[in-house]
């Protein structure tokens, strides 16, 4: 085994990030395939790691194993049929994607939604953020070995799902809301469930924190793993909790407030070193802030009945208008068949998703389908920095870094 014959065939040589590996490197280093199907990478993406024993020298990520061509698909579907597609971007917090898309179309149509719609949207988006951060934080704990926290906290995602079922009928891929608002007001059952959630979830979250956050083993595993500095993170286009953990306080909800976020009082947690522990703590604190925002929204909710804006081209008319008036019937037909034209123009709208700035760049040519729809997906952009974050780390640190970055395969590949 001492004299390994390396072939001279160019195709057999190892290419890492476009750089050809020399013979000495091929003999000395071990090239490990952290393949697409791996239990610890929560999602399907591949990493070829160049390792010297257990230390990682370099990595080449390969993505695209779940490329579903969302951008091409959106060019062939009318505006309402794009909402289920946006669901599948970051599927752990799909209401945020839906509402972001609806707001983009509302921006194109120059529609102003009433305050009640804004507050309802804020409640739903913050619940989705909590659901996303529950998954991310409990999975960081699982990857360090602490399975119990995952089981305790996951139960509360079921409560959030039941809430979504009351509002829109679906658990995970919600397709929530309409362009202009919602199809029905929140029922009293929704308010009851929200109150119960706000009363009981903090106890479970506190229990999870007590188990993990100041735990000696967890802190030793996560502090100083996968660090990235603030300037580097900005160069790589980081947004969201990953950027805030690196020290930059950029939050779309505060910078360019949408959906009446300026009415709420919340802080943006920031980390110092940008390592895994900071990302964990930032997400944990964001969950507490989301709970506080939901409480404020419930307290300040206007007592009116306006749960939709006046957008006759997109909002289905009530059934008695459909059966009794001619316009109602025509609008109903046009909306359901997707034959509504939209003014020509280009608009870019962004929302603060679970992972950062989720942007929608919509180009409309006046037809019934978007001419071009580009999703600015935060996961895709910050995953580029992964090889740099794990250089010089051990393999187990690389796994924890990946799970702390909350890479959702649907958003990565789109």
């Amino acid at each position, binding site marked *: 085994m001492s004299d390994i014959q390396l072939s001279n065939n160019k195709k057999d040589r190892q290419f890492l990030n476009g750089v050809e590996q020399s013979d000495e490197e091929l003999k000395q280093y071990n090239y490990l395939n952290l393949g697409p199907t791996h239990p610890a990478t929560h999602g399907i993406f591949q990493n070829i790691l160049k390792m010297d024993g257990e230390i990682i020298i370099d990595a080449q990520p390969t993505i*695209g194993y*779940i490329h*579903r061509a969302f951008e*091409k*698909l959106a060019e062939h579907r009318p505006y309402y049929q794009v909402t289920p597609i946006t669901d599948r971007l970051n599927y752990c917090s799909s209401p945020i994607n839906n509402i972001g898309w609806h707001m983009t179309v509302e921006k194109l149509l120059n529609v102003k939604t009433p305050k009640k719609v804004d507050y309802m949207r804020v409640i739903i988006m913050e619940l989705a953020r909590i659901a996303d951060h529950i998954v991310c934080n409990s999975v960081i704990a699982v990857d360090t070995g602490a399975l119990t926290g995952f089981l305790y906290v996951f139960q509360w995602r079921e409560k959030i799902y039941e809430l979504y079922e009351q509002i829109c009928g679906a*658990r*995970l*891929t919600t397709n929530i809301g309409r362009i202009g608002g919602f199809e029905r007001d929140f029922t009293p059952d929704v308010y009851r469930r929200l109150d119960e959630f706000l009363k009981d979830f903090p106890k479970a979250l506190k229990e999870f924190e007590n188990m993990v956050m100041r735990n000696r083993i967890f802190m030793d595993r996560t502090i100083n793993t996968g660090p990235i500095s603030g300037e580097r993170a900005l160069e790589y286009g980081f947004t969201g909790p990953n950027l805030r953990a690196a020290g930059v306080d950029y939050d779309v909800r505060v910078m360019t407030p949408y959906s009446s976020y300026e009415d709420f009082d919340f802080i943006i947690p920031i980390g110092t070193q940008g390592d895994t522990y900071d990302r964990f703590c930032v997400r944990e604190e964001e969950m507490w802030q989301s709970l506080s925002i939901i409480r404020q929204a419930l307290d300040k909710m206007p007592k009116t009945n306006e749960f939709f804006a006046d957008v006759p081209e997109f909002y289905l008319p009530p059934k008695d208008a459909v059966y009794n008036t001619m316009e109602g019937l025509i609008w109903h037909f046009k909306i359901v068949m997707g034959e509504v034209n939209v003014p020509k123009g280009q608009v870019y709208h962004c929302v603060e998703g679970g992972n950062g700035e989720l942007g929608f760049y919509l180009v409309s040519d006046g037809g019934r389908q978007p001419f071009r729809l580009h999703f600015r997906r935060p996961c895709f952009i910050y995953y580029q920095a992964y090889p740099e974050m794990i250089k010089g780390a051990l393999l187990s640190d690389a796994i924890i870094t990946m799970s702390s970055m909350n890479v959702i395969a649907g958003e990565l590949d789109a």
Partner: protein
Amino acid sequence: MVKVTEAPEMYTGEGYGLTRLEKIVGLARANSIWPLPFATSCCGIEFMATMGATYDLGRFGAERLSFSPRQADLLMVMGTISKKMGPVLKQVYIQMAEPKWVIAVGACASSGGIFDTYSVLQGIDKVIPVDVYVPGCPPPPEAILDGIIKIQELIKTESFRRRESDEYQKLLTSYGIE
């Protein structure tokens, strides 16, 4: 007296029961499935909910998830499989040892789902043979459990000789698997 599962039809007597070996083996296999969760997208999150406490897959015997194909019985394909992923899926299927079953969870795994695009495989039965399809986008956990119960029925009634039979060999060669 705790009843764990239904006994198969037997000729019983004082301290003995007489039945076919296939039925006992089928009973044992059906109630101790080791699934391999091949979770790619949204259906994978519903699977995580199924494994959780509310819907509890563990009470059907499938408590121990195996991520290694060599040790798994049931390949649960959950989520969209793209053309880039197809060969990987086939490789994982080939690495599993007989007897093995495949369940396609979700619309994307069954037929491509809403993604009728150039990059998505329109159903995993283009590359591997499938036993049970669970429709839904994503299917609620109750539907996934229903699919598991149907797999259990298939396992209980499977004959020993099926995996060596000509029909099964022809099925595999039609997929290009030796």
